[in-house]
Structures are given as C-alpha cells and as structure tokens.
C-alpha cells in the first residue's frame, strides 16, 4: 500500500523521506497525530477484542479450573515414564542392562546396519525378537509424537473441533504406547521360548509406567471433556465502549472518530457546583 500525505492525499515516493510533505508542506508525522493515535488505539482494541476470546478459551482449557490443571498434569506425566528404563537385556551370565530412551537410537541404528545377525549391547538376539523390539520402539516413537500433538492441541480443546482433535491425539498416543508394550512383551516371550540361556529382551519398568500413565491421561481427559470446561470470557472495550456495541455501531456505518465523538461526555457549561452545595 503506497504511503500518502495525510492532508493532501498525494502519493509519497521513497525518496520523499523528509518529515514535511513536498506538495502541501504539512508535517506528515505531527499532522492530526492525536486523532490518528486514537484511530490506532481503536483498531488495536478492536483486534484485541477479536483475539481475546481465543486466549480465554486457551486459558480455560489449560489452567482455568482444577480439572483443567489436573488434565494438563496428567498429559505431562507420561514423559516421566519415558525417562525410566524401557527395555532390559539379560545375558547368559545373568547380567542385566537397562536401556533408556537415550540408548535406543544408537541401538536401532546398529540393528538397521546389521547383516542378518542383530545384536544388542554386543550380544546376539533372535531376529524375530529384534524385529519385534524394533517395531515396538517405532510405535513408542509414534506414541511420543502423538503425545506431543496432544499437548499442543490441549489449549485449543474448548471448541468442538479442538476437543475432537485432542481426543484423537490422546487416543493415538495411548494406542501406540499399548502396542509398544505388547510388542516388547512378545519379544520377551520369543526369547524365553527360544534357547533358554539366550539373551532375553524384555519390557522395562518404563514401558509399563508409560502405558499406565497414558491410560490415566485418557481417562482424565475423557472425564474432563464430559464434564465440560467452563470458559470465562473477559469483557473488552474499545474507546471505553463495550466491544459488541462498538461493532454494531461500525456495522451501522459510523466511523471510529464519529463513534468517539458521539460517546464523549461534555460537562455542563454552567458555573461549577459549590463545594458544599446540595
């Protein structure tokens, strides 16, 4: 949008950098600055009045009530489960190694590079077991992504669409987490049924805790959504006028300066009242 002089309305070029208009000589910055400042304020407050309900809904969905806070805490808790050992490896010499989420990536990379004889911590494991563990960890990865999506969708869950999105992401996180746990249990079963002294890959405490916490998260989420989250909308004003009333006046064809002028209070022109007058 080209810049124009606020008085004469002529277009200003980039090289017209001086503060005075080259055509009418008016000071472009100062000319009717107070009125333009009030126009800016009207516009800013109008934008804020349109934006504020969204903020109120986000606030209500996250920290607006005790159930909402509980729901948020339950959504964060499964992350604690991930910090515990997700896998345990017991070797032939009964040595136990706990594998946490930080150990998983080099382990998966090594499995993908292996030429048919996968190993874990340098010890060979049956291929079926390794495949089950890899698939389980892939589901874990999906579950974590879904959990992240669920956390991001929670502040927007006060609308129908937002609530559906939060339900879907929460359910996906739980389903993937449960799938991961199931595959890790299958993995342990495979190794136990195999050669008795072979290396055993099993689900660690973290996998169980993670899945249980996801189930708790889904339950609390379901209960809170069923009960409903009350939203307290903050009343907004524009130039001191309630936002709804102001919008009606705008739609009626009034300009912001006309609205401001029509809503000013003009004190009476008589003598000021006696200090102790009746």
């Amino acid at each position, binding site marked *: 949008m080209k810049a124009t002089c606020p008085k004469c309305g002529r277009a200003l070029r980039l090289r017209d950098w*001086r503060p005075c208009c080259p055509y009418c000589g008016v000071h472009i910055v100062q000319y009717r600055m107070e009125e333009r400042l009030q126009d800016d304020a009207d516009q800013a407050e109008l934008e804020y009045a349109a934006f504020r309900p969204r903020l109120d809904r986000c606030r209500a969905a996250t920290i607006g009530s005790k159930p909402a806070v509980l729901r948020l805490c339950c959504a964060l808790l499964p992350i604690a489960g991930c910090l515990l050992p997700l896998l345990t490896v017991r070797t032939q010499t009964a040595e136990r190694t706990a594998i946490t989420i930080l150990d998983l990536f080099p382990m998966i990379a090594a499995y993908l590079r292996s030429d048919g004889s996968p190993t874990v911590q340098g010890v060979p494991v049956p291929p079926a077991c390794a495949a089950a563990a890899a698939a389980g960890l892939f589901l874990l990865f999906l579950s974590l992504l879904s959990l992240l999506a669920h956390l991001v969708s929670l502040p927007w869950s006060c609308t129908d669409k937002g609530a559906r999105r939060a339900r879907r992401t929460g359910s996906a996180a739980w389903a993937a987490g449960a799938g991961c746990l199931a595959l890790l249990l299958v993995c342990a079963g495979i190794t136990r049924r195999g050669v008795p002294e072979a290396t055993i890959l099993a689900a660690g405490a973290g996998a169980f805790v993670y899945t249980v916490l996801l189930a708790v998260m889904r339950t609390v989420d379901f209960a809170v959504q069923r009960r409903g989250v009350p939203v307290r909308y903050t009343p907004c004003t524009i130039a001191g006028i309630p936002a709804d009333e102001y919008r009606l006046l705008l739609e009626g064809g009034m300009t912001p300066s006309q609205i401001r002028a029509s809503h000013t209070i003009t004190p009476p022109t008589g003598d000021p009242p006696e200090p102790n007058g009746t």
Partner: protein
Amino acid sequence: MANPSVSAPPVQVCDPRTRRYVGVRETAAYVAFDMSQSFNIDNERESFIKNILMIDLRLYALVRGINAAWDVANDLFTGIIVDRTQTRWGKFKPYLMFLAIPGTLLAICFWLLPVFGLTDMGKFWAYLVLQLLMEGVDTFHGMARVGIQATLTPYPLDRTRLITLANLVSGALGEKIPQYVMQFFSDVLRKGKLGGAARIPSLYVSLGVITTIIGGVGAFWFFYVCKERVIRNEEKPTLRQSIRMVLHNKPILLLTLSETLAQLSFSKSKGDYVRDVLDKKTLQTIVGIPAAFVNPISYGLVPRFQRRFSNKTLYIMGVNCISLLNLPVYFFGCIGGKGKNGMYQKVVPMAVAMTLHETAFTFLFGVRSVIPTEMRNETMDYCEWKTGMRGEGMISVTKGLATKLAGAVNDVVSPLILYAFGYDEKAYVKGGTQSDRMKFVIFTLYAFVPAFTNLIASVPILFYNLHGQERDRMYAELHERRAAIAARASADEPEQS
C-alpha cells in the same frame, strides 16, 4: 450565572493512558523481534573464532583492541546522528529497515568464514573488516532498537504490557533452543558419534547461518510493521544540547551509575561454581528445571507488583533478589568448614539448596527483566519533559560507554583476583580440581560477595525520584504538550501547490 463563551473541553469516556495502541499483528511482530535477539548462537562466537577459525590469539587480541576503540569512537558520533534524524517514518525506523539486510548479510558472512579456505592472515583481515563493519552497523541498529521500544506507544502501561508479553512469550517459544541444540550436538560430536569432531565446524557454520536468517526474518517483519507513536518537537539538538540533555537528566545518570556499579561486582557465576567446585556442569541446567515452571508465573505477577510498589522499589528488589536469597545458600555451604568436609563441596545438598534458591528468585524474574527496560524508557520521556527534545541516541551512548568501561575493569580485575588466590587454569582440562582454599574463594565470590556489591549498586536508585505524583505529572504534561504540537501542525500549515 453561566458564561456561554466559556465551555470545558469534552471529556473522553476512557483514559488514553490505559488504552492499547499496538495491535495484535504488531505485538506478534514485536514478540518475534524480541525472540530474534536471543535466537542465535552468539554466545559461541569466541569459541568459533578460537577453535574453528583458529585465528592466532595474539591477532585475536589485536582485533578486539581495535574493535573496542572503534566501538567507543562510533558510539560518540552515532548518538548525535540518531538524535538529529527526522524522517516521515520517524527517527529510528529508517535505521532499522535499511540496516537490517546488510546486518544480516554481514553476520552470514561471518559464520561462513571457515568455508572460504582462507590463509591465516586472510582470516585475520576478513575477520577484522567484518568485525568493524558489524560493529558500526550494530551501533546504529542497537540505538534504533532501544529507541523504537520507547516510542512504539506513548504510554507506560501499554509499553510495560508489551515488554512483559514479549519476554514471556519469546522465552516460552524457545528462544534458547539454538544454544541447547549447539550444546547437545557439540557433546555428541566430541564423543565421536554422528561423524565425530571433524564435523564440528559444519555444526557452527550451519547453525550460525540458519539462526541468523531466521532471526533476521523475524526482526525484519517487526521493523516493517512497527510505527513510532511519540510526537516530538521538530527542533534538532546540537551536540552541546545532546550532552546537556544527558548531564541534566538525573534519572538516567542514577540508572547508569547503578548499572556501572553492578558491573564492578568481581563475582563468579553459578557456572563457574558448578564447574570448578562441584565439577558437575550439567547441574547448572538441572537446578533451573523447577524454576522453569515458575518463570511464566513471574511475568503474570509484574502488574500486581507494579500496583503495589513503585518502579524504583521493584528495581531494587530485582537487582538484589538473587544475591540476597543466595546468602542462606552461602551459610548452608559453610557448614562443615572450608575444607573437604565443607557442605559447599557436596553435590547433592548444594544442588537442593541451589534449586530452592533459583525457584525462589524466579518469582521476581519478570520484575527483573521488565522494570529496568521500562525505567530506561521513562528516562527518555523525562528528557523530553525537561528539555522538550528526545535524546534516545545520547542516552544509549552514555549508558553503553559507562557499562563497557566498567565491564573492561571487571574483565581485568576478576582474573587477577583468581590469580592472587592461586587459581589453576590447567586443572579443568587435565581432569584435576582446584585446591580447597580456591574452591572456597570461588564459592564466596559466587554466593556471598554479590550480596554486598549489588546492595552498593542499588544505592543510586534510592535517589531516583521519577515515581508517584512526579511521574503522573510528567506524563500528564507530556500528553498535553504532544497534543498541542499535533494541534499546531494540524491548524496552521500553509497550502502549497
């Protein structure tokens, strides 16, 4: 009997001092701009120059010396140039807009230096030229950034709201992510994974360039949409007037003195203590985890604190909260004496104490980050109130010069203090530790000394008188004066063809 020729002016329904002037889009752009200031790996610059560019340390010291002299010299004339600037876009927007792209390009060239395969002297000259150009651009840009923050909106309530929101949201959106990414991948590469240490230069180059571009885009968006909303007098200050503006501006002199004294603390940081005494660098991050949840709350408390206390009181509270709350940590650490049995050398108890300390002072973190900026903006309004002219440029120069000087003194004296007590600079890389005596000195410089130096730094602020009725009177008169300037400009301009 009523006099029909006299009528009081109409009174607005709402107080203009409480209105919002900056819209949602401009506010979002301001947040992006605030985030762009920290969304970088500038804290790794020194490491980049020494370990990646591998510029000879003597040449590096020479560049620093030349740059420091250039920094002081260009501050002096930049301030007056900025203060005398008058364009139809305002005083600061031209510098922000026209220097944004060159500044970004220079920073990209800096991070790309290792790619060019220069010789040692080639690297030196390239670095010197880039540094001088970047310093010049950054001086203008820095003053303009400070100035636009003071003129984005004419009233302090709206200004404080913007600063608080920007600090809160930019922190929550992850302005420090590049630094965490840098730390994580540096450690991974140094352990020989993902290609090993040979890929560290690529890490610096790619992160440096990417964060510069992202930060540059965010900042440019703000520069494009921002507006200066403070009406100012047409008169351009002379050099003498500019200097007088600062010398007769008691609030800015007091603030500058306070910040200068704070720079002369000769203290040690939490990082120094956890590295040299507890030998657990990651503790620095771990003790801050609970405080991360308190951080957003602290910004929500800023308006409540402002309703109860003046900016002066909040400034003093903010400056001293960390150091005074650290005194119980110090006394706790002293249990068991100065030797190996001293609690200050035990990781777990000190981690708990430091966590509690950090969580406690974080309640005042919002105040600490918002109030000094708001007070600096107030001093610029004070300058306009007293002299009729705004001197953002010279005020920035004054503050910058004083704190740089104090910082330089601190940089010289602090190592000498460590040397005097027998600090072993080779101990860390050799896997050794400092002596018990040195550890206790570091602990004292971290947890005890700042309590006194910060109290001394707060003394000038006791004489800061821009609060209460004086402040209200200042803003009322400024409002009238600006309205009068606008009315004059609107009323008596001549028509010209």
